């Protein structure tokens, strides 16, 4: 048994590909716990960052600087009464949130946090991701319909129309990135998520900079489409609270509502992961071609530790700024202890053996985190699009642009293969 567990550790494959069920389970557990924590962190971060953008403080009461707020929120949601409208279609109403959550979480099966840090590596990875995430539309449509009320119905119609139409532009952008993976000796591309990152590694170039500006435009199309896909500002028409109160989940409450909430944030992380994988080099560290060599590798592997030490320093700094009143003593101590924990993690991450293994995950998460920050930033800055404008943007701007980029990329790739590397 122990040997079976240990046999995987030296493997250079994902546990799924190696067929090691124990490690598959471990990875599933780790990724899903990580996701839950990430979503909680994200809700806290969103409230804090947005608050600071809007000259307010955000949550401050539950824990130091509201750090325990997500826990309080989730407890509240779990304890709330679960209301089902009398006229609702009970079965569909009941199953809709589960479909959405299932779709949002299943996607993470193929997301590569590192060359071996994925549950499994499918050879249709990206297709699988797009397919499964498109299933969440079903859940939304069903939720809106089953509520048997006008606002959720309109919300559901809007969001499903939006998601279906932006999927087209998104797909085109993705295809142009996949085309770039085929620029190797055999001339065959790959749909595998790990394969895509390895192609970027082999070509010494992130696809966002490939065939400048084609990669950049494709990335831009995807970046716009992914916000629309996740129904976030400025494309959050489905849940435009000023018009439709809350869109398709107006009638949901308590635990079931929290499932929608969870899946929204999970989907955000998922599509950001796709963007990172396809265009931003996945787990690869920045400047792989400019600053290459073992010295630079060593230097960049220090970053995870530095990041955690920085967070620890922030905690200590804020702990010293806490009010000196006895009532705040526990909070101050809590913040300091949190800082110590972060600092210890940071120190552990400085051990070369650890840092070399973990830095893939760190870079991947850091890039995804950047996208998450952008999500918050957009929400703080932009007004909301109107539905027809949104459709216009999807069909009349992004779709032709995506087609053009796809054709140009194909042409340039062909030329490059035929002329420069015959």
């Amino acid at each position, binding site marked *: 048994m122990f040997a079976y567990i240990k046999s995987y550790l030296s493997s250079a494959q994902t546990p*799924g*590909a190696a*067929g090691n069920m124990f490690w598959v389970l471990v990875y599933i557990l780790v990724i899903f716990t990580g996701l839950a924590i990430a979503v909680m962190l994200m809700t806290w971060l969103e409230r804090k960052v947005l608050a600071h953008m809007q000259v307010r403080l955000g949550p401050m009461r539950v824990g130091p600087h509201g750090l325990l707020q997500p826990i309080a929120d989730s407890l509240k949601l779990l304890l709330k009464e679960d209301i089902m409208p009398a006229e609702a*279609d009970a*079965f*569909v109403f009941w*199953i809709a949130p589960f479909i959405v959550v299932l779709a949002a979480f299943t996607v993470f099966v193929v997301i590569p946090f590192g060359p071996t840090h994925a549950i499994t590596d*499918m*050879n*249709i990875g990206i*297709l*699988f991701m*797009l*397919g*499964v995430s*498109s*299933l969440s*539309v*079903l859940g939304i*449509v*069903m939720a*809106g*319909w*089953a509520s048997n009320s006008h606002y959720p*119905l309109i919300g*559901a*119609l809007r969001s*499903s*129309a939006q998601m*279906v139409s932006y*999927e087209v532009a998104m797909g085109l952008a993705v295809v142009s990135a996949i085309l770039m993976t085929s620029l190797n000796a055999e001339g*065959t591309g*790959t*749909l595998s998520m790990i394969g895509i990152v390895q192609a970027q590694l082999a070509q010494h170039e992130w696809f966002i900079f490939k065939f400048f500006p084609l990669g950049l435009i494709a990335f831009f199309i995807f970046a716009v489409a992914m916000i629309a896909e996740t129904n976030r500002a400025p494309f959050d028409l489905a849940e435009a609270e000023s018009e439709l109160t809350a869109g398709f989940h107006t009638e949901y409450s308590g635990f079931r509502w929290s499932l929608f909430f969870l899946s929204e944030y999970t989907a955000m992380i998922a599509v950001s992961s796709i963007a990172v994988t396809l265009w931003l080099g996945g787990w690869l560290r920045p400047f792989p071609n400019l600053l290459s060599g073992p010295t630079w590798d060593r230097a960049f592997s220090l970053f995870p530790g530095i990041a955690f030490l920085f967070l620890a320093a922030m905690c200590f700094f804020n702990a010293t700024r806490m009010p000196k009143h006895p009532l705040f003593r526990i909070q101050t101590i809590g913040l300091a202890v949190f800082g110590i924990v972060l600092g210890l993690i940071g120190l552990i991450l400085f051990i070369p053996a650890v840092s070399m293994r973990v830095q893939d995950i760190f870079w991947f998460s850091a890039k995804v985190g950047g996208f998450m920050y952008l999500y918050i930033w957009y929400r703080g800055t932009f007004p909301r699009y109107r539905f027809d404008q949104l459709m216009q943007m999807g069909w009349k701007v992004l779709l032709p642009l995506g087609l053009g980029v796809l054709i140009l990329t194909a042409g340039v790739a062909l030329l490059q293969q035929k002329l420069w590397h015959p």
Partner: protein
Amino acid sequence: MAPVATPFFFYLLSGIMLIGGVLVITRKNPVHSALALIVTLLAQASIYLMLYAPFVAGVQIILYAGGIMVLFLFVIMLVSVDRVQRERQFNSQWVVGIIAATALGGLFMAVYTKGKDIFPEHALPMVESDNTQQIAMKLYGQYMFAFEIASLLLLVAIIGAVVMAKKRI
């Protein structure tokens, strides 16, 4: 990846497909029918996966479960369900139905008994990762003409739908 308990999963998925298919036609509520259809399609996609056709499976999910079924639901949601439930569900063309069913069953039986040779004894060894390329080669090589014809047909259908839907252009 080594196949795991293939017959079990085959029968499981087929069973789900059959149950789903029956539910599609027996449910009175059209939304429930659509749900059953989605289940059927997903089970079908899984069977494609078992046949080492992951690309087809993925496309099945994206296009049918994610795309077409959403459009189905779109239309169904706009239909007033109360009225549908009051309507008679099956039309009583028993004779035609029985004849068609018998014919189809006969065909299946004929293929199964006479044409055993056309099925290989064992699954052909095929590299999983080549599947997508194989389809691309076939589609854009051998069946190029059929493919283009199909896309042209779809274009005509789109234009027709627009013309019919729009009162004035």
